[in-house]
């Protein structure tokens, strides 16, 4: 899922300084699961903002809403008719949701309430780890299910480097060395031949803004365009 972190209250306050009527919109998918921007977090943020603005003697009127997915125009339609009553929208979705919101309601300023952090997995309650950089050229088959682009601090394709330190990365002792673990796991599976050959320079597919239309829907897109 997409993992996000609530921005500090001061930063959100400074973005909303000149606005008196603000609609805070949560997102019910990834950011709700990672406890950053779901319905519950909308309530908490609004309560914090309310108090802060009261103390500043600059009261604010806050609305609350939560849609299933802000990265889907269909769900944003639900806000139509509601948005007109506000000077600004505070979106608690990831960067994709914020941008779709801003595109859907172009005349209204939209501000982000979270920092989108990474694509990650849930290690424990409230504990998330980055796992994927969406590079577009997955090599997990070769690397025993450990992503070298994400988990190696240098993003090496032919590791481990000389900085590997008793199974840990040179950047610090709590960061395991991805390539040490790749080696260990491949060795256990008897698959070390996977990394015996030089892995050539990557053909990066994430250097321009990307669009994906699944094969089954390409005709539909062409029709829509014509």
């Amino acid at each position, binding site marked *: 899922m997409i993992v996000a972190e609530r921005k500090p209250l001061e930063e959100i306050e400074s973005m909303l300084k000149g606005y008196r009527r603000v609609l805070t919109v949560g997102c019910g998918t990834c950011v709700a699961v990672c406890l950053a921007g779901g319905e519950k977090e909308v309530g908490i943020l609004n309560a914090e903002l309310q108090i802060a603005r009261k103390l500043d003697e600059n009261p604010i009127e806050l609305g609350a809403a939560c849609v299933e997915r802000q990265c889907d125009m269909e769900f944003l339609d639900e806000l139509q008719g509601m948005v007109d009553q506000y000077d600004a929208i505070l979106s608690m979705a990831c960067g994709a949701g914020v941008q779709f919101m801003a595109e859907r309601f172009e005349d209204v300023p939209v501000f982000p309430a979270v920092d989108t952090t990474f694509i990650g997995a849930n290690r424990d309650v409230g504990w998330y780890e980055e796992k994927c950089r969406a590079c577009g050229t997955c090599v997990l088959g070769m690397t025993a299910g450990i992503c070298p682009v994400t988990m190696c601090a240098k993003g090496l394709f032919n590791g481990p480097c000389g900085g590997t330190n008793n199974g840990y990365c040179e950047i610090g002792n709590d960061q395991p060395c991805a390539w040490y673990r790749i080696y260990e796991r491949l060795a256990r599976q008897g698959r070390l031949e996977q990394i015996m050959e030089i892995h050539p320079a*990557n053909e*990066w*597919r994430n*250097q*321009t803004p990307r669009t994906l239309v699944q094969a089954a829907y390409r005709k539909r897109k062409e029709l829509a365009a014509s």
Partner: protein
Amino acid sequence: MELKSGSNLEKILRAGQFAFTGELGPPRGANDAAVREKAKFLRGVVDSVNITDNQTAMVRMSSWAASLIALQEGLEPNYQMVCRDRNRLAMQSDVLGAYALGIRNMLCLSGDHQQFGDHPRAKSVYDIDSMQLIQMVQGMRDGGKFQGGADIETPPRVFIGAAANPFADPFEWRVHRLAKKVKAGADFIQTQCIYNMDKFRRWVQQANDMGLTEKVFILAGVTPMKSIGMARYMKTKVPGMDVPDAIIKRLQGVDKKKVADEGIQIACEQIAEFKEMKGVAGVHLMAIEWEHKVPEIAERAGMLPRPQV
């Protein structure tokens, strides 16, 4: 007169002389003679020569190395640096090395996207952008600090250049972006190739009105058309280029053998106007793969001999 770098280009500009700079594209190989060959046409003809940095995202001899060869050949290089291929560490160390070896001008650019070149699937760096690069070099020179905040023992005293494209959209925004580059620390500006004179006049007027031309030297970019095909290519294929139909018509109106000559004639007429234009401090001649023609163009445009300052 207090100089920031002491480069010839800076001295020419600060003395109020109309500057004339050229361009030299390094070779796609390790052949230093290729640089020396091009350099010999430019010696004594231009005040400084831009040495391009992997232009159009094609791998070429590094711009600092070709700059040093140009220096050996008696030219003053204007070392170009793009943000596509280096992070802030590499950029700062290259600036230090370039200065240590005698390079006194540099031009800070974003660089063409690698998709346009011969390594389209390369990972680009863009750790910082051109605006931040200008700011970083200015901080190194005037503040004596690395971007990370540490002191520099011997700061690199380079004359800082930046690019401006008056023809990219939105037109109303261009002068404000120029203002940001001036604020970031640019000493001089070299513009995109100018063909739409009317639009350029309006842009310079805006820069004059905002007081920018008192803070920065603007060198107008000129690229003579070698052929009708080149003019068409520039018009349709090069992003941010504005070639009015009148230019193409004019080239079509002359005898086939005279097209290149007409291209030079147009360039000379432009230069004549720039010399008189308030807010324009010089001309940057980008005679792309046409270095041997530069002496003739300079002569015909009345740019010779170059002033000694």
